[in-house]
């Protein structure tokens, strides 16, 4: 019954944003809770525009204490160094043994630009074009060491097979990078790239480079339309449409008990708000919504952003997810160990590998 539309497995992710939290403990608690529910990954948002710690730092901090869940920090591309960003994401992949993702974002405000004083704020089109270039060069740098570039034992005093190290020679609109990277290819080959594709300028980047696109859609019809559009665009870039997963991003407020407390919510579907569609209701009705949208082929899954993280994530895992698991609609354990495996995405062959690539 589940495969009526050739649909894949249901994928679930949750945000673990904790405004004001500076200690590792509360973040670790939420990530472990999400892992207990078998979620594909957690996201941690970031921006230079507001107070709080560096998201990639936080998720690196919680990596050793978790075993399976994917870790997806937001890392912005407008005022950062592409070379440094790819090295940091690759390092997160190394320290988490293949569970790293990277939510690509841009900085559009003059306030952020002033923190760096390097250039003025630029239009979204410009900074998203650059974000696409950063996503592109990052993958090239991840590939710049072939998988077997490092000898297991030094041979004749040589530690590296330098025929398997490559300059990337990338020149973009705002920067250039020669390469190769300074660290070996990450365990996943390419850590998972995630893009919120709701707004126009981000869509092309998502279609071309993302493994996972997020869309803030308030109805299954809109979600289905966004998914189809993104996958068509991905095909237009020469990608297999299945290599792009599209998840519906919903704000969730599970504070009102077991069932929808207000008409028009819960079973009635999310309500549009300034921050995006908001689901307010009970965990059981949320499970209905998730199962329904997924069964209709409107989405590959959901990215859930709890409005009160400690309360809502607990209800989400112990209520909504438990129910989906009970119905056989969501995994009860992790069969794989990397984020790509959770998502059913193949480990990409290196672009510079001329022999022995996977077919």
């Amino acid at each position, binding site marked *: 019954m589940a495969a009526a539309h050739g649909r894949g497995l249901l994928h679930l992710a949750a945000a673990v944003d904790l405004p004001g939290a*500076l*200690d590792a403990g509360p973040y670790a608690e939420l990530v472990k809770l999400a892992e207990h529910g078998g979620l594909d990954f957690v996201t941690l948002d970031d921006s230079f525009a507001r107070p709080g*710690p560096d998201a*990639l730092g*936080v998720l690196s901090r919680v990596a050793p204490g978790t075993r399976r869940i994917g870790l997806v920090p937001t890392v912005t591309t407008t005022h950062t160094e592409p070379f440094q960003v790819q090295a940091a994401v690759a390092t997160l992949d190394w320290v988490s043994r293949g569970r790293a993702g990277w939510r690509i974002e841009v900085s559009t405000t003059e306030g952020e630009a002033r923190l*760096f004083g390097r250039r003025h704020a630029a239009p979204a089109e410009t900074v998203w074009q650059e974000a696409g270039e950063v996503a592109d060069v990052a993958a090239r740098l991840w590939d710049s060491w072939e998988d077997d570039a490092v000898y297991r034992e030094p041979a004749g*005093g*040589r530690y590296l097979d330098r025929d398997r190290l490559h300059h990337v020679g990338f020149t973009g609109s705002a920067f*250039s990078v020669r390469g190769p990277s300074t660290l070996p290819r990450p365990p996943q080959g390419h850590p998972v790239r995630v893009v919120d594709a709701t707004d126009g300028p981000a869509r092309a980047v998502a279609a071309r480079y993302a493994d996972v696109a997020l869309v803030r859609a308030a109805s299954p019809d809109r979600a289905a339309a966004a998914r189809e559009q993104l996958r068509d665009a991905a095909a237009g870039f020469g990608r297999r449409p299945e290599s792009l997963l599209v998840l519906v991003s919903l704000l969730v407020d599970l504070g009102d008990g077991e069932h929808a407390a207000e008409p028009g919510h819960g079973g009635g579907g999310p309500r549009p708000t300034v921050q995006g569609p908001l689901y307010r209701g009970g965990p059981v009705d949320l499970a209905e919504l998730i199962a329904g949208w997924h069964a209709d082929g409107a989405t590959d899954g959901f990215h859930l952003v709890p409005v009160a993280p400690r309360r809502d994530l607990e209800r989400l895992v112990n209520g909504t997810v438990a129910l989906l698991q009970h119905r056989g609609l969501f995994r009860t354990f992790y069969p794989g160990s990397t984020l790509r495996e959770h998502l059913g995405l193949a480990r990409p062959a290196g672009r510079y590998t001329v022999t022995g690539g996977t077919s």
Partner: protein
Amino acid sequence: MTVRRRMHLAAVFPGTDDTTGWPGPPGDARLAFPALERLARIAERGLFDFLLLDEGQRLPEHRGRVHDLEPAGRPEPVAALNALADVTTRLGLAATVGAGFAEPYELARRIATLDQLSAGRAAWRVATGGDPRAGENFRGGARPEHPARTAELVAAVRLLWDSWSPEGTPRPFAHQGRHFDIAGEFGLPRSPQGRPVLIQAGESEAARELAAASADVFLTRHGSPEAARFRYRYVTQRLAAYGRTPADLRIMPTVTVVLGDTDAEAQERAADIRRQRVTPHYTRYALERLWGRDLSGHDPDGPLPEAAPRGRDGETLALVERWRALAAEKGLSSRETVIEASGRQSFVGSPETVAAALHTRVREGAADGFVLAARLTADGLAEFADRVVPLLQERGAFRTEYEGTTLRSHLALSHRAAGSRPHRRGNTA
């Protein structure tokens, strides 16, 4: 002369000096988390002040190709140290981040995050004087490094770290200088240790001046006791010009150690390590670097190249002359000369000998402590922690437990001074 009885110890990974081979796990496994975790746990077991992770900005190249005679590949240090913060509780966590391409806000935030998440155990090692071609990997492009930019970067980063009120209220910051013009509000409160520890290094006049002005820890090269004492006094005397005292700066040479049950055994091990490292390939590489020309046809087991070196600078010519004299005196082949002349380990001997030598350096005012490098990765570090540290403790030269929780407390640096010390602002253009 100031005599401190307690020495400070640190370890560096992967080690920037090219004197020794790599005993760690094979291949990529070096970068996998278990290898880093093991290293950090050993350092913490040895009650070390901190573990320093070096950054890579560009793979070293030789004659236009990636240099493959050293282990290469290193994690991005700040992300890796955040992970290590989860498996350690006291060890200081120091990240090398190059000053050449860094922007104050991004860098200050990344280090402050590590500091918050580790409850005050973070340090930034300000790397200067790197390969200018590393710029080919960065937005700024290849350009010579500007010492004044580094000084201004350090000042701006400190301004950001100190920008919130001690009571925890965000306050706006503004810095306008020749290299940076930034304003806004920093995203993180003050450090749990007052301010993250600043580590600097270098042998140049500019490096010493910057260290005297702003460093908490100054890393130097290993040298003879006389040279080390001279350098120690030289840097220490500069402190007063910046309103600082010797209590504000720890001077730590980077050293290599080879141990054996007896001194003779240690010497034999040290020689073995050098022989293993200086392969025929490595011999040619070392000669090509010094001679500055293609020597791919040169027989490493034959005599030193007859051709004159291409470099005409005094240092190169003097070194070539020294190698020639050494080879002539002892009748050595090229390879034997390289083995004999390069990669001398700093301290070689039984645990007793090494402990005594380290302690003497500190007592004589040549160092406040040491950063152990290269050969000591993993196994070597464990050997040091288990065999030398207890002897240092018996001598009363090293702590027997961590007395505080922050890196500043390990280094016996004042927390309060860190927050209130005046600092130089960048020059106004």
